[in-house]
């Protein structure tokens, strides 16, 4: 009798345990994704790829415009890729028109500032200084840095939005400072 009831209790416990596991597994996965999302966002800010202007974009997102941030970032990469290609052409042209080159870098910088792409803005500022001095070496060096940051940022933000989609529309990454 005692043995039977012991078996009964442990089988009850087993089924409770497995039903608990079944209901918490998606929650555990979700909270792991949320952590990854928060860490990715923190790294974007800590490493200076983004600044508080990005937070401003997130503030503008709401139920009426639920994908606003991703839409604006997509527009940014579309425009900036075109500008990078144009800069590539302008820098290889002979004779070099530093005025036109500067105008293109200026546009790129402005675009970057709208989404809070801080490192890109810094690299563009340096690039413009070299344009001003008509220093080709300097221009070429800073353009390499601009292109590198452009690729890095694109990759990191693609990951960010992918994670955001997995976590679900009701979630938002914690603020950069947390």
């Amino acid at each position, binding site marked *: 009798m005692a043995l039977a009831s012991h078996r009964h209790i442990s089988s009850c416990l087993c089924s409770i345990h497995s039903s608990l596991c079944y209901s918490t597994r998606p929650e555990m996965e979700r909270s792991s994704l949320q952590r990854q999302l928060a860490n990715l966002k923190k790294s974007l800010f800590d490493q200076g790829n983004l600044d508080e202007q990005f937070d401003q974009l997130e503030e503008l997102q709401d139920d009426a415009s639920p994908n606003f941030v991703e839409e604006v970032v997509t527009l940014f990469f579309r425009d900036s890729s075109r500008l990078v290609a144009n800069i590539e052409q302008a820098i290889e042209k002979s004779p070099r028109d530093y005025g036109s080159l500067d105008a293109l870098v200026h546009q790129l910088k*402005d675009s970057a500032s709208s989404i809070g792409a801080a490192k890109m803005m810094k690299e563009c500022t340096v690039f413009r200084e070299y344009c001003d001095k008509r220093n080709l070496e300097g221009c070429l060096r800073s353009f390499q840095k601009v292109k590198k940051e452009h690729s890095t940022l694109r990759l990191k933000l693609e990951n960010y939005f992918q994670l955001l989609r997995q976590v679900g529309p009701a979630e938002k990454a914690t603020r950069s400072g947390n």
Partner: protein
Amino acid sequence: MSSSRGGNGCGGEGERQIHVLAVDDSSVDRAMIARILRSSKYRVTTVDSGKKALELLVLEPDVNMIITDYWMPEMTGYELLKRVKESSELREIPVVIMSSENVPNRINRCLEEGAEDFLLKPVRPSDVSRLCSRIR
């Protein structure tokens, strides 16, 4: 999902909704300014050049405010401002200039030419709220 801040409904409602024409050659900035204005309940039309802005102003006489970027190819925001202020039909429309550069001469020139205000980019919802009392 956070609700957007700065959405103080200044743009009005229904028939009394304020119609803003936003002019910027950058698609990113057009998206930003449109979102900020719409979250304050303004009705917004965006165009990517001064030329298109002038064409639209002829077709749509109900524009209550123009907000324009300063640096644009072909026609700058300053040139657009001048054209608007020189026109008897359009001169009453308030014009706000936006620029990423804080150049005092530029700002003064625009204000002297009749600009309502000069906003530094990136524009924030609080900048738009500031315009509220001036436009009504």
